[in-house]
């Protein structure tokens, strides 16, 4: 482990003040990803600012019927909170599909958004990686890329975003509340994570001197017709090859509103407006679902070892929309995909 200085933030303003005055500083909350990356010397902050004691731990309904989740709510508390289980069961399900109970007990809501790719070349400091060392090249493009992205890739980077929680948050159209030297601002979830382009070192549009204070969920929670399916190499405690969050609002057989977000296939939780538009107003049938899957995957590009993900994603989308339409969401303990 590298050496670093340590301080505690007294409040959000103090946290913002401290990070502005320390160019090599980073915030630490749960630490589950950052400390691991520091052990590998992928991250080398000179100073950690401990924000874990800030009072950002509430989950509350706002006057407008939205739900505000404090950035320091542990993932496990969020997954099992009665308000979330009742109104946003897709979010609860996605969180329970990720990591282990120990990690969910530690990891914060805000930190989950900021976790970095698990691309093995990003972790291996002996190999070139544009995300870790801009301009050094991408080892994955012509390397072992079975786990890598099929949509939104660039010549510079084909890494995926590792989060399950974020896939559900994307489908729910959450907002990210942040604070910085210029005050507070709100970032729509779709605008929070970035595609790699030619700056894969930047995962998100959060500025280095900003802090996430809360996540806000719209009132619409899709509690009747939703699912989260995660396909992975082990039954539990493994990152997704492909995951799908699907949510529908139905009137009889007719789809009034549809949300579809995928994990494990892109540098950010992947949504496609055209795929969702192809579901709205249609009857909830297998053909409708297949058409949406075809649209979403029409631009997919495979590399040497991940071509299987395109067909896997197609089938997972159809299966997820079927589960959502039937009101039979995927169990996260009995892993049989029905």
């Amino acid at each position: 482990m590298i050496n670093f200085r340590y301080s505690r933030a007294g409040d959000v303003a103090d946290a913002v003040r401290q990070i502005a005055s320390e160019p090599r500083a980073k915030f630490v909350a749960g630490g589950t990803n950052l400390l691991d990356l520091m052990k590998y010397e992928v991250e080398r902050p000179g100073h950690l600012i401990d924000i874990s004691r800030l009072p950002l731990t509430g989950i509350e309904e706002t006057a407008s019927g939205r739900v505000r989740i404090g950035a320091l709510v542990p993932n496990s508390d969020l997954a099992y909170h009665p308000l979330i289980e009742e109104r946003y069961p897709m979010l609860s399900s996605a969180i329970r599909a990720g990591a282990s109970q120990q990690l969910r007990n530690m990891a914060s809501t805000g930190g989950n958004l900021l976790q970095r790719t698990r691309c093995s070349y990003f972790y291996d400091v002996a190999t070139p990686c544009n995300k870790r060392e801009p301009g050094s090249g991408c080892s994955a493009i012509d390397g072992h890329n079975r786990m890598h992205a099929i949509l939104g890739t660039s010549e510079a980077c084909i890494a995926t975003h590792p989060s399950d929680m974020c896939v559900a948050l994307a489908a729910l159209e959450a907002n990210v509340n942040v604070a910085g030297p210029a005050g507070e601002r709100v970032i729509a979830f779709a605008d929070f994570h970035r595609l790699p382009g030619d700056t894969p070192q930047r995962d998100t549009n959060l500025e280095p001197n900003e802090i996430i204070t809360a996540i806000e969920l719209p009132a619409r929670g899709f509690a009747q017709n939703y699912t989260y399916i995660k396909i992975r190499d082990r039954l539990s405690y493994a990152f997704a090859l492909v995951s799908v969050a699907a949510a529908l609002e139905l009137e009889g057989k007719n789809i009034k509103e549809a949300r579809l977000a995928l994990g494990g296939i892109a540098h950010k939780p992947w949504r496609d407006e055209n795929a969702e538009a192809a579901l709205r107003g249609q009857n909830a049938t297998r053909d409708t679902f297949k058409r949406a899957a075809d649209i979403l995957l029409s631009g997919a590009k495979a590399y040497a070892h991940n071509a299987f993900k395109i067909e896997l994603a197609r089938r997972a989308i159809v299966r997820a929309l079927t589960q959502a339409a039937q009101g039979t969401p995927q169990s996260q303990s009995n892993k049989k995909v029905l």
Partner: protein
Amino acid sequence: MPTSTAPDADTSLPGKIPITLTVNGTEAQLQLSPWVSLLDALRDRLNLTGTKKGCDHGQCGACTVIVDGRRVLSCLTLAVMKDGAKVTTVEGLASGGTLHPVQQAFIDQDAFQCGYCTSGQICSAVALIAEGRAKSADEIRELMSGNICRCGAYPNIVAAIQQAMGRA
């Protein structure tokens, strides 16, 4: 409790930070560098070597301990961040000469072979039972998936946890 730590005079190394941990009911005062993990603090400073260092990267669960009632990975926890916390390790589970029901169940059900993952498995299982969310074998397996056993004693571990749940 310091809110910030001044570097040493030569600024090459940050100073040590005084913290208090209550480990298995006993208060301990420690002076630690910021980068010392809770795992290393327990093993190397407090000589509580029951908690094991497996991968040291949060992937195996061997270092699982219970902090303020929650099971966490001590290898990915900075000790200085837990100033004031109550920590329970495998050494703190038995009362007097009587093993904790989970410890006894691991013996009864032959739930370990080499034993390296066992203290993490047991701490994880104690917390799992306290959480109260696992009822079926599927749910036990899912909520214990953060604890890897290279000997493959999983069926016996599930049986041990079921036995301990029956007693609770």
